[in-house]
């Protein structure tokens, strides 16, 4: 089974997925001073509120790697799983898995040609591991030109050792020159969010992150999958924009910042 695309499920005929331009899911959740408190789901017996409108996410988008913008090209990309999903941002992420990618190749502007020639893109399968080899990945991510800088790129690995399944997260590119220590960026990226002003700046994070990564824990006998997660720097959530624009004070439990992100379809390894 694949993964890696995102949609809005908007029910107001308005596919708005950005925090500062969110028009809600249902008509009563279009922008207003009181929409955050609208009841989305109530317990039929007790009348208790189960979900409030502020818990809706301003998201999301499907991103499709294609040659042309047509029904056929989009559908074919879905069928081969060369797609990823985002929580509403239009950041770009590209990944190739193969057996012999070299560390400096991802720095080449035309790295995709080698990626396709000697490996597979997101949604693809790796098989026939050469003796002694471990999967190598080339990953490049570029921020949304009208959005937030990137915090980090992560590889999420899952595998089955014959008895049980496991998962492990590897940070593979960290912004702001941070080193990777014990599989994680050495410190958090920080935040420039001014919640009261519903603003942030791109003075932290990076616009472009690139990584070459080789699985250090690879066992050719074990089935595995690898997908990429790209995390943006913190930005104001739609609730913060509402608070500012309508001059309302949100209750304590309302989330006011968000780190938007992208998830790619996995690359699978089969022994």
């Amino acid at each position, binding site marked *: *089974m*694949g*993964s890696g*695309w995102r*949609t*809005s*499920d*908007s*029910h*107001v*005929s*308005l*596919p*708005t*997925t*950005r925090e500062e*331009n969110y*028009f809600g899911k*249902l*008509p009563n959740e279009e*922008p*207003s001073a009181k929409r955050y408190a609208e009841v989305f789901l109530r317990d039929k017996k007790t009348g208790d509120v*189960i979900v409030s409108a502020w818990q809706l996410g*301003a*998201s*999301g*988008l*499907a991103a*499709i*790697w*294609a*040659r*042309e*913008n*047509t*029904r*056929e090209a*989009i*559908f*074919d990309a*879905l*069928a081969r*799983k060369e*797609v990823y*999903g985002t*929580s509403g941002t239009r950041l770009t992420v590209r990944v190739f898995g193969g057996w012999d990618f070299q560390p400096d190749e991802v720095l080449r502007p035309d790295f*995709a*040609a080698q990626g396709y020639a000697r490996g597979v893109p997101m949604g693809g399968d790796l098989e026939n591991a050469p003796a002694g080899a471990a999967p190598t990945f080339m990953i490049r991510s570029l921020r949304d030109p009208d959005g937030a800088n990137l915090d980090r790129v992560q590889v999420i690995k899952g*595998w*089955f050792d*014959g008895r*049980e*399944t496991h998962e492990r997260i590897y940070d593979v590119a960290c912004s702001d020159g941070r080193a990777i220590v014990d599989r994680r960026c050495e410190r958090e990226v920080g935040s420039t969010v001014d919640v009261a002003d519903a603003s942030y700046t791109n003075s932290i994070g990076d616009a472009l992150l690139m990584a070459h990564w080789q699985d250090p824990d690879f066992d050719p006998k074990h*089935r*595995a999958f690898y*997908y990429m997660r790209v995390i943006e720097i913190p930005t104001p959530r739609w609730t913060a924009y509402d608070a500012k624009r309508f001059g309302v004070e949100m209750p304590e439990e309302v989330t006011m910042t968000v780190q938007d*992100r992208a*998830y790619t*379809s996995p690359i*699978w390894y089969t022994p």
Partner: protein
Amino acid sequence: MKTKTDVLMCIVVAVVALSVPVVAPAQDAGTLDKDQVVEQPKPYSPYVDQHFPQRVLFGDMHHHTSLSVDSGLIGNTNGPEVSFRLARGEEVVSNTGQRVQLVRPLDFLVVTDHAEYLGIAKLLNEADPTLLATDIGKQWYAQMQGSQEDAWAAVVDMQQDFVSGEPKFDNPQVKRSVWDDVVDIASKYNQPGTFTALNGYEWSTISSGKDGSGPAGANLHRCVIFRDGPERVKQILPFSAFDSGDPEKLWEFLASYEEKTGGRVLAIPHNGNISNGQMYAEAIKGEAMTKDYAERRARWEPLMEVTQEKGDGEAHPLLSPEDEFADFETWDFGDSFGNPKEDWMLQYEYARSTLKNGIRLEDKR
């Protein structure tokens, strides 16, 4: 026509991959006559023989308009045309009279209104005579004209019909006319190369109902996405929860569509997080999943919707306690009726745990 272009391109790629020289047919098939080899000059432009994807297209593949009863009966009067106009970059007016525009156009949009009672809300809005000639049509119309609570009560009643699988209004001519309209609107906004409007709809079963597999409330919805244009998709009517609440029956329908039309179609499940452990379950109707079932699901549902407004579906903090980013827009209260969540359900709802379960099951076969 487009299909032909794609096939041709594939052949070119295959030839180039074999060798740079283009080989003319030898007289003795199977023997390469070197004298017959014609050397093609290597093109100066690096891109003429490059056929892999070089652009990312952004869009929304799960989107509702006034044609869905849970939208059109409670105040949304904007139909698919408004959605397409906004998506391609125009300013439109929302239901509350607010001007709205995107930061820049999307590349594509799939309008996926609920197949169940598709278009009924719009017809009620227009006081459609065929609908108002029925008792239930009159009742819905009165509820819609009443208070917000009355209108919402009509939606809740209709959703009960999604649960029972028994529609209270079922008119083949109306269904045909609505679906043809949906397809025609997509055709109108589909501009190959500039903006794509794919054909699609949503199959909206909530687990129980006709052939249903579990307690009412578990969201098992799928968005159905077609590769094709009107000449193919107008040959069918959307398969809905009124036809069956069993995903396997949906896959049979998808197969019959491809068989009948020569087209292509797939289905994308969404919101496993409100399925209470059913969306990616390993037990199918009480039995262990068979290889055949797994292969059919992978065939018809190669993707999952990983995240959306009603919660993120990548990972859950309880399943991934060492993942500091897992608790993102988490919705884990229960199913779509509010039946509470239990911890065992989580691994059958999220992308990461489902991928893990998937490779474990694959290893067993």
